[in-house]
């Protein structure tokens, strides 16, 4: 069984069981999963060597679509709101992706940041439409036609989110092993050869960008429903930075990484807020430094690395044997 499956299965079992033993954790865990989805989108782009510092845009856009639709009582149903908001986010990613995939490295990262900050400003300034800095309340919608109490709603939303995360992670894992996923890696290692294969690196990156926008949008749609409130902060650069932080913390080596990172991020944030309320950002910073210096492959790499040290994979053995 591959390390990815073992780590993913272990994480999944823990996530299925924990809320049953500690029902208070459902909202925190759902938030972590939503951030994990956005960080999974960042992971996809990292495979091409690109970092987006603006994926809060898609997270917030989707959340506001949910807020507007739920307020207008248009499609006041989870099973409608989530796919429609995610698709809207994907559409936005497609539009922005058309020109952003022309850029690489720092320009790619900064353009994403710039666009997300424009959106943040619009959300803040267009008070009469968006509610400004106060944001918008999201009335609790029905779930499969049922009107649920808050606790039940949160409980079921957690398991629906978990199921969606599993599907998303499996899809991304499959995609990364597919020709398109390997072409995405090729953008990082040798774009010249990719062009000399007759492959458009822009098209490859566009597909990945669209996927990452959809993933961030899915996370944003769910967080709007679970928190019951959206604010411009969802599009703020700090939020986008958190997604990158989570992706690095969790590790980009496997699709379980962003979810591991998101859970750890929530734990650090939770405890730091209690025990070091004035300096919890410093705690996060120190944590990031520790990861960068001592575990550059993130939590996923840390776990997977231990297994690798115990038993070298076949490819390493073959290489060691010489040719």
């Amino acid at each position, binding site marked *: 069984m591959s390390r990815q499956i073992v780590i993913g299965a272990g994480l999944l079992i823990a996530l299925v069981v924990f809320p049953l033993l500690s029902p208070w954790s459902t909202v925190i865990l759902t938030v972590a999963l939503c951030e994990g989805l956005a960080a999974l989108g960042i992971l996809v782009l990292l495979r091409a060597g690109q970092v987006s510092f603006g994926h809060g845009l898609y997270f917030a856009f989707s959340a506001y679509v949910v807020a507007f639709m739920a307020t207008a009582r248009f499609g006041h149903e989870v099973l409608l709101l989530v796919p429609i908001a995610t698709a809207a986010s994907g559409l936005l990613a497609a539009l922005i992706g058309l020109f952003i995939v022309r850029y690489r490295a720092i320009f790619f990262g900064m353009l994403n940041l710039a666009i997300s900050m424009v959106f943040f400003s619009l959300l803040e300034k267009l008070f009469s439409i968006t509610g400004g800095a106060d944001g918008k309340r999201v009335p609790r919608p029905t779930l499969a036609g049922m009107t649920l109490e808050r606790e039940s709603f949160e409980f079921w939303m957690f398991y629906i989110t978990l199921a969606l995360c599993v599907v998303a992670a499996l*899809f991304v894992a*499959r*995609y990364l*092993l*597919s*020709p*398109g*996923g*390997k*072409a995405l*890696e*090729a953008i*990082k*290692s*040798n774009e*010249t*050869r990719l*062009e*000399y*294969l*007759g*492959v*458009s690196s822009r098209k490859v990156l566009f597909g990945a960008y669209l996927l990452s926008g959809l993933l961030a949008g899915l996370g944003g749609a769910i967080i709007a429903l679970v928190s019951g409130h959206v604010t411009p902060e969802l599009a703020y650069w700090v939020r986008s930075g958190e997604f990158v932080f989570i992706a690095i913390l969790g590790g980009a080596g496997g699709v379980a990484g962003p979810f591991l990172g998101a859970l750890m991020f929530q734990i650090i944030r939770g405890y730091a807020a209690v025990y070091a309320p004035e300096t919890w950002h410093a705690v996060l910073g120190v944590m990031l430094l520790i990861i960068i210096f001592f575990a550059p492959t993130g939590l996923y790499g840390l776990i997977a690395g231990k297994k690798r040290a115990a038993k070298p994979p*076949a*490819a390493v053995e*073959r*290489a060691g044997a010489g*040719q």
Partner: protein
Amino acid sequence: MTDLILEARELELRFGGVQAANGASLQVRANERIAIIGPNGAGKTTFINLCTGYIKPQSGRVIFAGQDVTALSPRAITRLGIGRSFQIPQLFIENTVIENLLLALSAREGTWSPFLKLTKHPKVDEMWVLLEIVGLKDTGHRIVRELPEGMRKLIDIAVALALEPRLIFMDEPTSGVSSHEKFQVMDTLTRALDARATTAIFVEHDMDVVARYASRVAVWSGGRIALEGSPDEILNHPEVRETVIGAGV
């Protein structure tokens, strides 16, 4: 010439004060094996870059199979049927040899399904044949970064061949390959080119390889093809012997 596949017409390129191409012209017929020889640093690779869209000439035209490809991108030129391998191999070094070749086959076949695992590609058998052509069947599972330069050069050629080009440019295909393997590799490579009816233009410094595998030799000098002829004529030409080959040949 009805079977003309490539025509470079009066290509001009100046970098700063250097005249890299100075009216370079070459006509290539289908199924020819043209060796381009010339002193190191004379601009032979620049000529390949001009013909494959990596650099655009300041004037002149490149016609491939009757179509003007001068202004086209490398991607468009590749899709029309021109492949190339590089002097410094251009590969996906963090991937395995298999993945490099299968990605080329995916590009050729247009197989981009997100549900298809690259290593389960329907053309996986063809990938092993390509590795056999360059004599590297045993290296398939190795990461390219771990391989010596000579092996990488051969993989670079196999990647270009995977696209089934009608015309292939190879920049010093046997440099870095051990002398006893050189002819073996060139023999299988030539057979593969013949079987696929692929025209080949290769830059080469090894005159034994030129003499044995080229059907025509072009001498690059002063930013253009200064001399053309059969291997016999060119390799025995006094000026070529003096300026290109040297007294030792």
